[in-house]
């Protein structure tokens, strides 16, 4: 057990060193959400309405937080696929290290990275007039929910990479695969304002649960709807990620073990 933790930490540090040595990718992942804040907050936002009233930018920020967590999928999946394609995984697998370290190291590093991205976005949010209105305790709880979602997304990403293997293919499919989840959700628009079927899908979207929950915790506008998922956002914001982890972590581990077939 202790070797699993030591090796996992060694692998975490390895992945963090990647970020330091190849920061271009990080810049891309930073600039995307900031762009969304600016474009949606100032360009489209002027024509947007928030159900129940309130500032659109304050409505938007929790959505962009969640979107940033989701786009971490790309970083996770390409990172794992690159390891697999470059043969370095063969060295890891032929060494007397903990089998789990490759995945736990990836997961931890991605979490630290998510914290970094979130801090930047937080500052960016404060600059455009967003704020948390329910105290630091609840704000930290919201950050906790975001990180939980990020862990779930990491495992989806690891599984995706093990399934597809080719890093270029992974890079190409990640964005189109992830985009609908942000579009058909409450990230940019309240589901009540959407056509009914799409609105329902949006409300049940796992991302929407986290968005709604953190809007509530931050005290931002846009809490809306009297549907079941809207009323139980907090529960779903925990349940969805846990369900995703419970599904994709075992799938990924099995897939990883099947590398030796």
């Amino acid at each position: 057990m202790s070797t699993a933790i030591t090796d996992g930490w060694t692998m975490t540090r390895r992945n963090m060193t990647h970020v330091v040595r190849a920061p271009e990718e990080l810049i891309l992942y930073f600039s995307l959400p900031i762009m969304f804040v600016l474009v949606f907050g100032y360009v489209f936002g002027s024509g947007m309405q928030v159900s129940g009233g309130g500032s659109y930018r304050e409505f938007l920020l929790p959505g962009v937080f969640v979107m940033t967590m989701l786009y971490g999928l790309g970083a996770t999946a390409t990172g794992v696929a690159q390891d697999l394609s470059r043969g370095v995984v063969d060295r890891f697998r032929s060494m007397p290290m903990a089998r789990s370290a490759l995945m736990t190291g990836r997961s931890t590093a991605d979490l630290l990275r998510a914290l970094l991205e979130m801090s930047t976005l937080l500052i960016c949010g404060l600059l455009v007039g967003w704020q948390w209105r329910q105290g630091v305790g609840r704000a930290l709880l919201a950050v906790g929910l975001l990180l939980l979602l990020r862990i779930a997304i990491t495992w989806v990403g690891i599984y995706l990479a093990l399934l597809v293997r080719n890093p270029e293919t992974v890079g190409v499919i990640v964005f189109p695969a992830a985009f609908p989840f942000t579009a058909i959700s409450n990230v940019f628009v309240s589901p009540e304002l959407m056509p009914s079927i799409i609105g329902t899908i949006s409300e049940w979207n796992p991302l929407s649960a986290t968005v709604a929950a953190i809007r509530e915790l931050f005290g931002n506008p846009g809490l809306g709807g009297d549907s079941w998922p809207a009323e139980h956002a907090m529960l779903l914001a925990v349940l969805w990620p846990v369900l995703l982890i419970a599904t994709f972590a075992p799938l990924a581990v099995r897939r990883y073990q099947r590398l030796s077939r």
Partner: protein
Amino acid sequence: MTTFEVVAEGLGKRYGPTRALDTFDLTVPAGTVHGLLGPNGAGKTTAVRILTTLLRFDTGRASVAGYDVLRRPDEVRARIALTGQYAAVDEILSGRQNLELFGRLFRLSSREARRRAAELLERFGLDEAAGRSAGEYSGGMRRRLDLAASLIRTPRVLFLDEPTTGLDPRSRNQVWDLVRGLVADGTTVLLTTQYLEEADQLADRISVIDAGRVVAEGSPDQLKAMTGGDRIEVVVRDAAELAHAGRIVAAICGAQPELDPTVRRLSVPVLDRVAGLVDVVRGLDDAGVAVEDVGLRRATLDEAFLHLTGHRPDDTREPVGAGRKADLA
């Protein structure tokens, strides 16, 4: 008593209908270099991946460094190292960071990992490039870094899967020297290669693999001997005299020489190399045949391979006829 560091008995591995390995047997005594020689797709890499615990097999039994590969993979992993065809290093990290990472994963303290990395970087001539990303290294440097990573802790058994494929001759010689140094220190090496010269240079014993099974095993000299050993080659000045010279040589050596009129050359197997050569030169001189060139030619592993498998090692599976003559050109 000899201890065997690598033992494989009747290994079989299928991928769907393809048999990658088919009753593959291998024993490698401690402290020796064993070459697995065979064309692409013969099963060399499959065998190495099984023995290094990366791949499961369907039938048979395998043990490395005294431990069963299937039941005690961690014990095996603690005693082996693998340097593959594709350098297994982290391309984003620098050379130094790579070695420190692997050192940490071998449970060295961070100070010890740093010290070991510095030592290996110097020994492998990489200290100047230590801070650069491994992805920017040349093929030869990357392979050296890969080898260095395999030596962070001296392995009992080192697996080298085509360690010099794609390297220029200078880098190849460097790798060969490193391997010789390791063997001198007592490491057992299992080497796969498509290059006969490499097997000839490094290996104490060679298994020739074709289509997933061992078709011949022996020392390089034994394998060469299987093709008929050494030959005397004579080039006559006048093509018209070739047949005449052939009869004289046949009488002296007691074997029918092969004649190649296009280059005015005849070639005959010989047992007693020097005496045979002297007799042939004297016999031809006595008969007044003008000789332009004469020499002894050692059999090559190339011929041995062709003889054993019917095709050349670096070719596709096309058989190249039966003759050894094809190789004399």
